[in-house]
């Protein structure tokens, strides 16, 4: 076996530039694919995390009749005594934070400009609201603030608002009417997602309840767990009478689906790119086979069997693959690691299908996907070389020797 690799190594050395170039093609393909995989994974991971952190939480407990699409604050759809329910949930071991939230629809206007927003009443004391505490300027609202509001940076920009500035907020109330009040901007936050930040304003829960007429009600108990994989188990343990309990998987079914789909998509891209690099390898080996017709004839004449000739060429392909894939995965890993640090800036990517995207994407390479890619690249390369190898093994010695003269 060693001898095959020794011969293969020397054969590759005969056309060093050609070998290096085809190894490089494989290396570039591998590096590119590794980066693409890291990029997709980073995107999916951060979008899932962002969506959970900002929007859905790990579990939501809602009134049995609640319809998340309507943002209605009619009492029928809301949870009564939410503080009590939240406190009860927070006593569970696996729960990191549970906090009531009230969601209503409204319109912010400043002079002639206006913008439709989601109004979210939050408990300023809860750690679940930490993502909103990344303030560009000003302070977060306090629980008993009656005139203060916190808004996102892109909304403040577009309406020309600064901390201390005033805006008029219109709200759809519990009894189906509209109310309005002037609020003072206390703080301007950024969550990292422009798309999300431009569509939401925060009020202290008590003020939101009073303003909307929801009184002692909330739209949901927003629950974060210590480990999100526990969601199903915890959800099962929660009081379900009169409530609907939803896990993040149910709340983001589309996102989970897209995630699965993106894995299939990556596999598909892998096959295409590796298919292309495989043809480069096939081409290199075919050239070697034709150049070495005479040699193959000699080897056959002195008793080398077809299987052994195949092994010889497979050894050559394996060495090429080893070099190319090793080099490529190192480069791909380095590239991913570098951008995982600095991120890749995309700006406002919008929110689609409830999937919140950060403005910056951080590639994230999992060991799984790296190994997967390395193994696939290796196997495809070696499989591709079967064709030239078989061709070599089938040469009739007479013709092979003739081809030489």
């Amino acid at each position, binding site marked *: 076996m060693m001898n095959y690799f020794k011969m293969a190594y020397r054969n590759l050395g005969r056309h060093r530039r050609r070998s290096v170039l085809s190894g490089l093609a494989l290396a570039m393909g591998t590096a590119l694919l590794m980066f693409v995989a890291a990029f997709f994974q980073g995107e999916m991971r951060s979008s899932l995390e962002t969506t959970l952190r900002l929007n859905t939480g790990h579990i939501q407990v809602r009134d049995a009749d609640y319809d998340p699409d309507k943002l209605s604050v009619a009492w029928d759809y809301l949870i009564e005594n939410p503080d009590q329910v939240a406190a009860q949930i927070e006593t569970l071991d696996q729960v990191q934070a549970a906090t009531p939230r009230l969601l209503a629809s409204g319109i912010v206007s400043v002079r002639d400009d206006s913008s439709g927003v989601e109004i979210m009443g939050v408990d300023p004391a809860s750690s679940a609201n930490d993502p909103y505490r990344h303030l560009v300027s000003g302070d977060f609202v306090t629980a008993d603030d009656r005139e203060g509001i916190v808004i996102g940076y892109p909304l403040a920009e577009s309406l020309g608002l600064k901390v201390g500035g005033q805006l008029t907020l219109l709200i759809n109330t519990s009894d189906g009417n509209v109310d309005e009040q002037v609020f003072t901007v206390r703080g301007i936050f950024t969550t990292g997602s422009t798309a999300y930040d431009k569509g939401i304003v925060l009020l202290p829960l008590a003020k939101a309840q009073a303003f909307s007429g929801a009184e002692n009600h909330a739209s949901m108990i927003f629950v974060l767990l210590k480990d999100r994989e526990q969601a199903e188990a915890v959800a099962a343990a929660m009081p379900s009478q009169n409530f609907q309990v939803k896990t993040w998987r149910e709340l983001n079914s589309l996102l989970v689906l897209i995630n699965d789909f993106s894995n299939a998509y990556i596999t598909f891209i892998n096959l295409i790119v590796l298919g292309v690099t495989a043809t480069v390898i096939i081409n290199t080996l075919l050239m070697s086979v034709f150049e070495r017709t005479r040699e193959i004839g000699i080897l056959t004449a002195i008793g080398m069997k077809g299987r052994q000739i195949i092994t010889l060429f497979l050894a050559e392909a394996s060495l090429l693959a080893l070099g190319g894939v090793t080099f490529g995965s190192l480069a791909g890993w380095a590239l991913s690691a570098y951008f995982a640090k600095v991120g890749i800036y995309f700006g406002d990517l919008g929110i689609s299908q409830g999937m919140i995207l950060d403005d910056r994407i951080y590639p994230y390479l999992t060991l799984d996907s790296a190994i997967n890619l390395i193994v696939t690249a290796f196997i495809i390369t070696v499989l591709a070389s079967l064709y030239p190898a078989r061709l070599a093994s089938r040469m*009739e010695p007479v013709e092979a020797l003739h081809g030489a003269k």
Partner: protein
Amino acid sequence: MEVAKLTDVTRVYKIGEVETRALNGVSITIGDGEFTSLVGPSGSGKTTLLQLIGCLDQPTSGKVIIDGKETTNLNRNQRANLRKGTIGFVFQFFALIPTLTAYENVEMPLLLNGKNSTERKQRVLELLKAVDMSERAHHRPDQLSGGQQQRVAVARALATNPKLILADEPTANLDTENGEQVMEIMKRLNKETGTTFVFATHDPRVIKYATRVVTLRDGVIEKDNHTPAK
């Protein structure tokens, strides 16, 4: 005892519509220990005959028996097996593997025959000595002269102690001195080991070493002369 026995062998090459009868009903027996020359004009069928004896090719019709074995129905692998134990080849072009050193070239058939490393080493050194190439054992073919390459090729052909060595114009690309040297070596090995040699050649210097001269013309044997051994 005979090493090879061909009976009524015909080989027709077909390229498109054109048929060439390279051999036309040749019967010949090669006895053990012979040092035989195949001569004849270009295109008379010498190479074709060697290839059939060497199981590199199969006849269109007729029977080829090598070392007592009928070869006509063997598949590729079986023929390769027969070759590697029984037959050695020396070609006109110095058919060494360019990536391997002289030593490794001679070692190759031993590897293919599954010899262990001590056996191999001993045999390779012995053979290189026999062809006077010990000093250049670790040179690549492109670092050797034509005569030196051909001597390595002879050593390789002898490596597995084959019964029969087939050489197709072994001296054609060598000058007089190197040609003589290669022939001397082969003759000596023929005497010492009893290995059978068959050459195809135009070279009178080769013919003078032969104990038997077979003349081909247009694919048939025209003359078959046994000459006294020198």
